[in-house]
């Protein structure tokens, strides 16, 4: 099972690792500031995040030891495991913020919906690589992957966690478009998309979710209530100006005006303290990391590996985009973290696992040739 080769080390993606370490270092610095002054109770978030980062490295190494093709096999267990967790959470989950999202494991609260995102990427990559269609998938051929998506989607929606559930849809659509679809499928997707938005608004959405969307559309209407978060986030980012207020000097975050300042809105703290220049630098590194991930996939010689790389990059990309657009007041407040930056063990571990798979695929692409790094 474990076939380790010295050349694996030779083909290890050191550039990606450098970018990853840079992003993580910046995010830890930022978390320190976001939770400053340190609370006397419990472990400081930046420390906890550091532990999870270390744990994530271990998990990455373990993942790299196994050929990613084994994931075809392991994914059955992973899928069932995650679905069971999602069911369990509905029964025993810990309520926070009006939703059941965590399972208390004592040392940390496991958030299975984070795992579900990665699980879906692997599942779809596995399915699409095995059921290959050259001139685009028909709707019939999409029934199975759709069902595979719907199960965790519905379970997460029941928590309710609309943001993460929609994330699954976005992953599915991204990957389906990636493997090419027939024209009528696009049509059906379009129509059912509009229909489900209508249905959701009239039947499914809970009042607080509707409120969030309404607030987003008219954030100035009530600054003290729901629009408050968006407004405060924009103030934080905007007040950073060109060069920022300086590290640990941000007032919006430290004086608690910024909500969720070390989780969903962590990047607003960065924007406030480092300004436009710092933001540009961070986004640049993040952008390089994503592009580098896709670049890796270009040289992969098998479909499964390619789909994995693509799915993982998209998973990180879409979360990042949604999170940052939310911070900038361009999207409603949905609980989507900025991967590697927002505080949260489940999200960090999942992202590290995903990146582990990315490293794994890249390490093993030498099978086909001698392309230089």
């Amino acid at each position, binding site marked *: 099972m474990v076939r380790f080769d010295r050349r694996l080390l030779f083909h290890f993606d050191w550039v990606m690792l450098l970018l990853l370490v840079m992003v993580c270092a910046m995010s830890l610095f930022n978390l320190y500031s976001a939770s400053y002054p340190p609370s006397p109770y419990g472990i400081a978030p930046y420390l906890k995040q550091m532990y999870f980062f270390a744990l994530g490295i271990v998990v990455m190494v373990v993942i790299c030891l196994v050929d990613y093709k084994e994931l075809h096999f392991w994914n059955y267990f992973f899928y069932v495991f995650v679905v069971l967790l999602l069911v369990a959470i509905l029964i025993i989950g810990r309520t926070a913020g009006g939703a059941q999202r965590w399972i208390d494991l004592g040392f940390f609260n496991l958030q299975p919906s984070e795992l579900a995102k990665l699980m879906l990427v692997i599942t779809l990559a596995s399915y699409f690589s095995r059921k*290959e269609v*050259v001139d685009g998938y028909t709707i019939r051929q999409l029934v199975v992957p759709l069902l595979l998506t719907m199960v965790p989607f519905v379970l997460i929606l029941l928590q309710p966690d609309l943001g993460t559930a929609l994330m699954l849809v976005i992953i599915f659509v991204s990957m389906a*478009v*990636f*493997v*090419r679809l027939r024209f009528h499928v696009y049509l059906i997707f379009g129509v059912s998309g509009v229909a489900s938005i209508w249905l959701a608004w009239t039947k499914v959405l809970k009042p607080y979710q509707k409120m969030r969307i309404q607030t987003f559309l008219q954030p100035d209407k009530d600054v003290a209530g729901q629009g408050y978060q968006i407004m*405060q986030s*924009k*103030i*934080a*980012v*905007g*007040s*950073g*100006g*060109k060069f920022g207020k300086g590290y640990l000097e941000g*007032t*919006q975050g*430290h*004086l*608690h*005006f910024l909500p969720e300042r070390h989780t969903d809105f962590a990047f607003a703290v960065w*924007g*406030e303290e480092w*300004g*436009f220049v710092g*933001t*540009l630098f961070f*986004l640049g590194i993040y*952008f390089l990391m*994503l*592009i580098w991930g*896709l670049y890796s*996939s*270009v040289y*992969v*010689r*098998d*479909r499964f590996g*390619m*789909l994995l790389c*693509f799915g993982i*990059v*998209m998973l990180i*990309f879409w979360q990042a*985009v949604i999170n*940052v*657009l939310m911070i*900038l007041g*361009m999207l409603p407040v949905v609980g989507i973290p900025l991967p590697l930056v927002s505080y949260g063990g489940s999200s960090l571990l999942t992202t590290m696992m995903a990146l582990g798979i990315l490293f794994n695929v890249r390490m093993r692409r030498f*099978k*086909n040739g001698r392309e230089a790094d």
Partner: protein
Amino acid sequence: MKTKQILEELEDITEQDEAACSLLRGRTFLAVGVIVLFFSIIVMRFWYLQVIQGEEYRQLAETNRVRIQSIAAPRGHIVDRFSREIVTNRPSFNVALIREDSIDLEDVIKRLAPVLDEEIEVLWERIRAGSADPPHLPITLKEDIDWQTLAYLENNKYKFSGIRIEVQPVRTYHYDDLAANTIGYIGSISRKELQADGEQRYEGGDLVGKRGLEKLFEPYLRGEKGSRSTEVNARGFEQQQLQVVNPLPGNDIRLTLDAELQKVAEQFMAIGDKAGAVVVLEVKTGKVLAAVSTPPINLEHFIGGISHKNWQALLDNPRHPLINKVVQASYPPGSTYKVVTALAGLDTQVVDTNTEFYCPGYHRFGNRVYRCWKRGGHGMVNLKQAIAQSCDVYFYQVGQRVGVDRLAHYARILGLGEKTGVQMEHEKSGLVPTQDWKKRVKNEKWHEGETLSIAIGQGFNLVTPLQLCVMTATVANGGRHFRPQIIESIVTPDGRVVKSFSPELVNELSPREQAYVDIIKEGLLEVVHGKRGTARGVRIEGLRIAGKTGTAQVVRIARYKGLADEDIPYHLRDHAWFTCYAPADDPEIAVTVLVEHGLHGSSGAGPIARYVLKKYFSHRLQTEGDNPEKSLSLVSE
């Protein structure tokens, strides 16, 4: 070995895989495009928020972070001409609620109500009134609590979460209601006043002058507010003090009033609850030494906002305490107006010192009979005698010959018929009627007979007590008319004079007119000192006083004629005037007294003027045992 391995691996890759992968590669480039697109949008948005709108958001963040609380500036003091403090400040302890600090508001209010001696519902009413403000702003529940309540609240702080004691400077009145109508009071700024405040010096809850000098000199008295900037977190908890700007106390106002003289005048007016006014002017400068209006308003009632009950009582009081009768009420001058008629007669050569008229007790004009106040008549009288005895018939004759318009001219040069320009609000200009005036206002022709009434100060004539005092002072001063002034100077708390007011000569009579005035002065001296003078009761040993009595008719109804004074209903009784100056030979002060419904000038108003003079000259008169307290008891008998 190496080659073999490579070959092995090559087997893993199928032709099909290769083709499929190249298809996917195209899609990968599409994905790169999507990523670039979204990152561009994000970067542009950051550019917009941070670079283009950065300054605005920086200010918003500051507003978020910095809480600025203003510190009330101590209001300027009001002192009398001898620097006696009339109005200063003292701390008032107010009970305020900070809603966001309160844990169990319902219970706290329930416990607090009996301590503050207020209804629970009343407290809730106040909380609701302030509920539109952010929860970190204090809502005042009760102002100016006493020491006992303060001590209790301080000792039982733990029982009252969210309740805070705030200290605010409020007015304190060292002479109680001294010159209350003139000084006025302060109160919470109204919405209208706030809107009118273009410079945004004020904020809700500020105390501003509402009436009297407090209002008129608000810009000097208010000082400049200080501020305390603190950094707060999103919950409004204070993190650190950033800056404190100390308030600048307001400027002090030094009045021309003599507080002790004013006090004596008020005390005498208070006996029998007289409604009316007393004005004392310094003859040679026009400075107001006393400006009494009774009944006074109770200034203490206005601290912390007057209650509805007290306000209604003020409005309902038939003696109109809210009107400053010194300048805001005008009355027919009665016989005091004969000074004007006399001057007019002399200056128009209608009469001279020796001209005599016979007074049979009435004067027939047209088909009407105009009565003299003395039924039996005065017989043959000359000008001096006519003034001394206040002979109406004599002045009917003079008035008839002079005519209403020429009378008006002399009234005006003596300061009647127009605002004196003293620094007091809502001054009335009085009324000096002319033919033209009647045509314009009433659209009626002037009747000759009306001139006769005017000549003795009845009819359309109206004067304020201050105007009459100015007239008296002008006569006393040989025709030099000074503008009355009540403010000596405005001084900063450290004694620097900001603004000082010097006596202003409005006009001066011609030498010829001055000579006539001297004749009139002789008559006025006779009023007090002559054998038949109408105000002999006013005499003070060792002081020569010149004056004139007056009775202003309220109604002219025959059925009250002949009734005993006390049988006439209060509101229909005549007003009593007495106006005088002393010493007659070198006048220092002029005193004018008006007692509403006081019946007769000599008995109703004269004694008050007498005591004021006595007080003023007390250090020069060797009258033993004649202190104000004793005099008080004399008058009340």
